[in-house]
Each structure stands twice: as C-alpha cells, then as structure tokens.
C-alpha cells in the first residue's frame, strides 16, 4: 500500500506514502498526487515510512511538483526516510524539492 492516507491539515493536503515505491506502486502515487492537486492547496508528501523508492517513484514526485507549480501551489517533502533521501541525493533532487524535517515544522513554515 504505497499511499497510506490523504488528509487536510492547516490548509495543506498531506499525502502519506509508505513501503516500497517501485514501478508497480508509482502509478498509485502519481494518481493520488494529481487527484489531491484539484483542491488547489499546497501539498506535503510524508516519506517517513518509505522503505524503497526507485526512479519510477521519484518520477511521480517530480510530476507532482511540476503540476503543483503550474497551478501556483507548492509540493514539499516531509520526514524523508534515510532510503528516500539517498535516492533523492543520487538524483540531485534534494535541492529541487523543499524538504521539511517533520510535519509540525512543515505546517509551521510560511506558505510558499
């Protein structure tokens, strides 16, 4: 189950992902991100429970980021697990995404 929950918190949409996000699971993540975009809110993607993510999973996040920016919203990553951070760094995407240490920090951060 790649997408654990989609909730609204302090005016943001929080999408929590978990488990192994590979070519099989990535389409579900892509769908969930694009669907939550319709609320026109900023998106926070919680990666704390992600144990594996590959280029397919990263591609979903990139597509989400691009779609969000197109509609003047932000997509930031929250509680990035060690494994996800390693893969983001390999892709040098750690500077492209806004990354928050945890959810309270992300919610407290000024809207982008």
């Amino acid at each position, binding site marked *: 189950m790649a997408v654990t929950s989609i909730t609204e918190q302090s005016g943001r949409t929080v999408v929590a992902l978990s488990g*192994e996000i590979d070519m*099989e699971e990535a389409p579900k993540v892509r769908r969930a991100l694009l669907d939550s975009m319709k609320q026109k809110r900023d998106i926070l993607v919680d990666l704390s429970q992600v144990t594996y993510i*590959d280029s397919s999973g990263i591609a979903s996040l*990139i597509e989400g980021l691009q779609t969000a920016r197109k509609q003047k919203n932000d997509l930031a990553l929250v509680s990035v697990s060690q494994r996800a951070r390693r*893969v983001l760094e390999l*892709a*040098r995407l750690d500077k*492209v995404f806004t990354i928050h240490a945890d959810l309270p920090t992300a919610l407290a951060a000024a809207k982008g």
Partner: protein
Amino acid sequence: MSGPTSQPIDPNGPLTDPLEFAAALSRSFAETQDIDATVREALGQIVKLLRVEAGAIFLLDELRTSLICRASVGPVDVTGLSVPNGSGVVGRAVVEDSIQVVEQAYQDQAFFAEADRKTGFVTRSILCAPMSVGHNVIGAVEVLNKQNGKPFHAEDQNLLRVMAASAALAISNARMADRLVAQERLQREVELAAEIQRHLLPAEEDESSPICGLVRPIQEVSGDFYDHFELPDGTIAFAIGDVSGKGLNASLLMSQTASLFRCLGKTVRDPARLMSILNREICETVSRGMFVTMVSGLYDPATGRLRFANAGHIPPLLRRPNQRSIEMPADSPPLGIVPYSKYETEEVDLNGAQFVLCTDGVTEYRFGDEELGTEGLDMLIDTARGKPLLQRLNAVVEELQRAGWRARDDLTLLAIDDAMAARTVEQRAEAERAEPDPSDFLFGLSFPADPKRLRLVRPALRAAAEACGFDENETDDVLLAAGEAIENIIVHAYGNRRGEIALAVHRMPDGLMLRIRDFAPNVDPAKIQPRKLDDVRPGGLGTHFIRAVMDDASFIPLPDGEGNLLELVKRKR
C-alpha cells in the same frame, strides 16, 4: 395375519402375549434410544393389558437413595414424584426385590396416602413388581385399582412380573448403550488431546542434529514434554518437563507449560528468568497440588557453551569422554508451588561432552525391586555408541524393553552431544573453504517482465547482497540498481509487452556480480544514456542510478537475436 409373536407393536391395542410385549419393548428401545418415551409406551401397554385404573414406573436414581417416577398413566400424572428408597409400597418392592400385592391400600402401614390426598385419587388395591436384571434392581412398576373393583389375580401377578423383567432388561440395555456412546465420545476427546500434544513436541528429529529427544507416554496423553528449537543466532533453546499426576489434567498442564516455553523461549535469553516467569504463570493457573519439574536452557553449538536452570527436576547428567559422569543437582523448587521462587542459571562448557536429561519415568524403570536410576541410564546411553544421537536414545528404550524392565510412568529423554556439533561446525568450515570459483554462482531466477515481480525479486537479492558482506546502505543500492535495470528491460527492451527476464547472482571475492538478461531485440546501449541532471523531468533516471551506485555496468555482446545481457558489479569498500 401371522401369529401373535410376530405381530408388529400396535400402540392402540393391548398386547396379550407377554413374550410379544418383551420383544416389542426391546425393539422400541433399540429404535428410539429415548428411554423415557419407551418407558411411557411400555407402561401404557401394561395398564391396558392388566385393565387397571392407573400405573406408574419408578426408577432408582444414580445414588440409589430415591425412586423417581419416570412414567405415569391414569387420571393423575405423578411423573417426577420422588419417593425415598425403602418407603411406600414401591420402596418395599425394590428393597425386598419381591412382588407386592395390597388388597386394601389404606390398611397397609407402608401405603403413602399423601399422594391420594393431594390428587383426589382413591387408591383401593395395589400390585407392584420390582424391575430387576439378575440381582440388580433398577426400579419398580406399580398398577392401581383393577377395573370394575375386582381383586388382582395370580395371573395378573405373573403377567406384571414378566413385563417388569422385560422392561428392566430393555432399560438396562438402553442405559448401557448410552454409556458406550459417552465412553466413545470421551475416548475421542482423549485422542484429540493426544493429537494436540504430539503437535507440541518437535515435529521430527534430525539425525544429524546435536540435540535430540523422544517421549514414550504410558497412557494416550502424557504429563511429560520436551522441546528444542533454533534461535536466529544459531543458539538452541531446549526444555524437558514432567507434570505431577497423570491423565487429562496433567496433560493439560503439560500443554500449557510447553506452549509457554515455546513463546517465552524465543525472547527470554536467561534460563533463570525464564523459569521465574513460567513459575509465576503456572502458579496463577494451576489447580491445587499440581506442579511441574523442568530443566530449560540455551546451548550454542558454535561454542559448546550451555546455560540452564533446573526447577526441581532430576539432575542432568554431564558425560565427558573418559571421565566419570557427573550429576548436576538443583536446589530450586518445581514450578507452580510458590510464586516467587528463586532460580539460578548454571553454566557449563560442554567441550565435546554429552548432556543428558530425562524424566523420572526413565530412572524409575523397574526390574523386580530394582530401579534403573541415573547410574543405569548412564550405562545404557552407550548401548549404540557411535550411532547418530536419535538412534542412541531409541537404543536405550529398546534395551530396557528387551531386558524385561517395566515402565511405570511416561518416559522422556533429551540429549545434547556437543561432539556432533563440533563435527558439523568443522564440516561447515570445510564447505566454506571449498569455494574455489572467484565468481561463485549464488542463485538464478527467471520471471516474466512484469512490474509486479519486482517486489518478489528484491528479498532474494537482499539476502545475496548481505551474504556477500555488504552493509545495509550498499545492499539497498544493489536492490535499486537491479530494480532499475529490470524496469528498463520492461519499458525499453520489451516496450511493456510480455517477455522473460533472467537474473543470475554471483559472489566475488570482493563483492557481487549480477547478470540480467532479456530476450528482446538488441538494445543500442548508446541510446540509453543518463539524463542531464539539471533537466528536471520524469524518466531517464534509472540508468543514472545504476551508474551511480554500481562500480561497473556493461552490456555483454550477444549474437543477434539472442537478447541483451547486462552485467552489474558492486565491490566492497
């Protein structure tokens, strides 16, 4: 119409022949298995046949202290009425086991007039016959007031006596059938309990294992148990126990103790602490007077180190080669007696020695007045010297039986032979040395080109990478690279169409090599290039990841039409 003896029972008409009555009654009991219904039917026949105003059948209860009315016919229903055995005319018939003829009820001292007063019935004359099988009286049948006020004839007495005897026999048979059914049910329950117990013992002993046990219950269910299982680090947890008492209660306590040990033994690594926890649990649930003696411990076959705790059990026997055997006594009480008993962990370095545990069913094996004892067991253990451990244990039991020793209790043996473990450790080391191939083939997998298979491949790869000595991060990188390579094949080589992928994993002296092959038309490696990293868009990342985390990634040329073969190498830091 055939003769009266073969006439079927007619519930509406009286049967004139007592023999026919008896036959019909037996048939009826056999068919319905409902004693009360058949007793009622029999009484109805008796009342009609003897032309009386009322009748009742009384049967003795289980304690034989009261006579209970089980059927009644007449203007007043007295079913359920209880009369103390020996009182009333009915009681007299039962106690004296003789037929009672009372012509004037109110002139008989024993007559119980209270019933008449309560019911408004007026009893004039009584005929009451005991119902007995052999010398065993089970009750009596009583009839009241011959119709038209006539007295009872001698013929009536004979008829009632015969019918009472027939009814007694039929009831007695029906009760026996009931008991057999109940026994059968109990037997099935006992078999079920035995079956559950067998599942609590280690499934099958491995001949080459350095630890083995056996149990020979004297009844179907046993109060003995033993268990051993390997923990993730190779240490073996073991236990042997004996529950006081026999039968179902003992076996239930045994099952409880054995399953507690199975659960706790996996996490509690200190034998004394394990015993304390078991003791408290058993104290809480055990019924008065029952207890468990037990030895439990941990044995490490890699080092020969053994730690154990003893709760009031027969001392384990330590048998070192060419030395006198030592008994290792226990001071701690059995489990289930006092909740806060203290237990201590003993430590032994086996160093090739044998550690033998048994229940008192073994040491109390008897030959005349002589008991086998620990010394006897110590000698018998060597009966099948040199054979695998399980065969040596079986030989002990066979030798006892062959020599005519008598078992008085369940017999359970559990033994550790550290010499055998030392051999297997050596064998393992030898096997590891015998790996001359620098690119040792670990495993191969073949699977359909389907994203759903990725999650099935990863665990096998993870195990391989760990076996090659990679740390967690490096292992995760190997998984990532392999996953990306397989996804590339699914998307680029097969274009999301059906196809086959083969994966081979080799161990190298300094790392790991993966070979991933497809059977699609040749791919031009030049066309699969990593993307420019400042170009933020989906796709193209996989190849970049492979090159970033692996030390070497190259396509091995294959003849045209043979597909593509990608070789990935990762070396240890």
